[in-house]
């Protein structure tokens, strides 16, 4: 078992190499599922281990990349679970929903899969950084998969910001490694760090999490990517930032610093920011992207709370539960958008209603309706957070919940408009058995979302799903009321371009580019002018080259020679006479 971990993330890379084989390239899609098998095997086996709760199993390859180690403990086990579920669903759906450039899609899919598996299991900073950058850069391939202008623009912004984030993270990780003297993450959490190092680390990961002003790539990338890819982007990759914070930043000593306070308020701000701009979107996937940003607000807030606890380990379990909840629901919602677009399926009345039923369940779960995973997790978090030191007024949290609910209602409305027009009999989209099978896997996901909280509480043996408070119900109700009111009064529907502040960035970029271009052009003109002068001066000098022959003839005249003779003789005599 010990030696399994290393192979889990190497296996997808091996499969990617197989892609070089031409005949495999044509049927690349099944390979995606093949790549997930060892990971599932490890996840399954890990369940059986008794010491999973207490200790952890790790593996070290000293020769590998500056000596890397991996570990599997309770936390990483749950993250692994989340990753596997979402990636498997994405793999299944890409069988159906991705048709063009399958080989290239598969290559990038496998690379980013191995990256995400690696950073989940990483126990040393270098492996985490390797996993993180491998995932984020190969995800770029998924974002620009469609090749349309919108996808290219999204890809460009995604890459620029991912690169900046990744390099800042590199600087942070190197400085932190130098500061702590080791690269094993477990030892990092107890060593206090210099401010700028922590800021570098935080900034590197914040870009991936989508903190306001750094989030501009998210609303562009998610809609541009094919549906399964955006499910993974939202479900797994966005979590990498938060979990990265937890792994890299020194959790145990954070309590003394101002970080928790900052994180709490940032979390709340992100919730509202995501919601407000989300409402202004008309495209369902962009709306979902904004909702992910706002949900991330919860996680940021949660981290702020976790850091204040004496033993952050326990708090983290709840956070990973929330992450699991958000991953499943958001992945499901993104896939649902895919299904709604799948007109062939919609043609079947039975399937159509079932899909809409699933969408409804997921939306409500996210909105936090009682008895659903959303409400359970949120209320549990709020209850736990009360006894922490710094705290954020609970009304704000409630408003956050309301915002999410509003978003969900808006999403359903937008989705209905999208699906509303009659399902035209799309020519070639025949309803194959495979699509049905994949659809059922989506339905299974919806079921999992419902069942999961009950199973989790019984497994942990603490807390229970029905928290008894009506706050969740109240928020959903008020959300419905507000939307109905809005519609009735026909208030204007504000429209904001996806990536809101992005427009400002672009204007800034264009302006800087114009200024630079102008200066560059004048510099080149000056250079050309100097070159012309030099050539002119050269030819002038050549013309009067006879200068040297004139001097030479003058020098060889006898009067000059004799004068030279006498001069040198007298000079010598003088010089000797002077000193002696």
């Amino acid at each position: 078992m010990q030696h399994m971990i290393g192979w889990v993330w190497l296996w997808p890379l091996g499969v990617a190499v197989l892609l070089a084989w031409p005949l495999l390239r044509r049927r690349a899609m099944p390979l995606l599922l093949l790549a997930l098998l060892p990971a599932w095997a490890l996840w399954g086996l890990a369940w059986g281990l008794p010491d999973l709760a207490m200790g952890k199993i790790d593996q070290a390859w000293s020769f590998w990349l500056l000596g890397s180690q991996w570990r599997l403990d309770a936390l990483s086990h749950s993250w692994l679970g989340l990753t596997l579920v979402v990636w498997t669903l994405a793999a299944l759906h890409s069988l159906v929903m991705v048709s063009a450039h399958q080989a290239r899609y598969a290559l990038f899919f496998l690379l980013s899969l191995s990256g995400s598996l690696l950073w989940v299991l990483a126990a040393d900073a270098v492996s985490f950084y390797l996993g993180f950058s491998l995932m984020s850069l190969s995800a770029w391939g998924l974002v620009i998969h469609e090749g349309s202008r919108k996808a290219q623009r999204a890809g460009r912004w995604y890459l620029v910001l991912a690169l900046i984030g990744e390099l800042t993270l590199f600087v942070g990780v190197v400085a932190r490694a130098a500061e702590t003297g080791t690269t094993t993450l477990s030892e990092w959490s107890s060593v206090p760090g210099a401010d700028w190092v922590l800021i570098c680390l935080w900034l590197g990961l914040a870009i991936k999490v989508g903190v306001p002003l750094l989030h501009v790539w998210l609303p562009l990338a998610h809609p541009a990517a094919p549906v399964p890819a955006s499910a993974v982007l939202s479900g797994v990759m966005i979590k990498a930032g938060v979990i990265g914070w937890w792994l890299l930043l020194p959790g145990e000593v954070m309590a003394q610093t101002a970080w928790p306070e900052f994180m709490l308020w940032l979390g709340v701000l992100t919730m509202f920011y995501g919601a407000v701009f989300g409402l202004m979107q008309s495209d369902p996937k962009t709306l979902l992207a904004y909702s992910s940003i706002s949900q991330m607000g919860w996680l940021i807030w949660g981290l702020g709370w976790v850091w204040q606890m004496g033993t952050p380990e326990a708090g983290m379990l709840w956070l990973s539960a929330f992450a699991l909840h958000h991953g499943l629901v958001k992945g499901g919602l993104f896939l649902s958008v895919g299904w709604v677009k799948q007109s062939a399926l919609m043609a079947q009345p039975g399937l159509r209603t079932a899909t809409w039923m699933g969408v409804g369940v997921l939306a409500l779960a996210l909105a936090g309706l009682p008895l659903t995973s959303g409400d359970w997790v949120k209320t549990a978090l709020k209850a736990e957070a009360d006894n922490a030191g710094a705290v954020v007024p609970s009304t704000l949290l409630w408003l956050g919940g309301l915002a999410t609910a509003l978003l969900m209602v808006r999403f359903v409305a937008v989705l209905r408009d999208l699906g509303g027009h009659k399902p035209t009999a799309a020519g070639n989209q025949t309803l194959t058995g495979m699509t049905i099978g994949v659809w059922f896997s989506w339905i299974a996901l919806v079921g999992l979302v419902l069942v999961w909280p009950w199973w989790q509480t019984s497994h942990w043996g603490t807390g229970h799903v029905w928290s008894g408070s009506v706050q969740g119900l109240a928020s959903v109700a008020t959300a419905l009321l507000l939307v109905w009111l809005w519609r009735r009064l026909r208030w204007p529907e504000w429209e904001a371009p996806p990536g809101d502040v992005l427009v400002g960035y672009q204007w800034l970029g264009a302006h800087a580019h114009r200024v630079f271009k102008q200066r560059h052009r004048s510099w080149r003109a000056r250079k050309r002018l100097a070159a012309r002068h030099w050539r002119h001066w050269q030819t002038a000098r050549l013309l009067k080259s006879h200068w040297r022959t004139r001097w030479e003839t003058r020098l060889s005249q006898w009067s000059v020679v004799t004068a030279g003779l006498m001069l040198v003789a007298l000079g010598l005599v003088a010089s000797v006479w002077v000193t002696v």
Partner: protein
Amino acid sequence: MSGLIYSLCALGLVMIGLYGLARAHHGLQQLLAINVMSAGVFMLLLTMAARHPPADAVPQALVLTGIVVAISALALGLALLRRLAAEEAESHD
């Protein structure tokens, strides 16, 4: 006393030779100037020899050698001049 006069005469010859060399426009004049100068140097040597009664034989021997060297140099110079004159005449017509 007479020694001083002759050494002045010798130096005079040398300086006139040098002047001749500087102002000469024709190869022959330059050769003449050099021979004048060599006569002056030999005279200087002989005045050195004649400073004390038994005239010193070594400078006289040197002068003899010098004269032969001077005449051979002159002969070579003239041969070159003749060759030069012939070649220029040839190149003109």
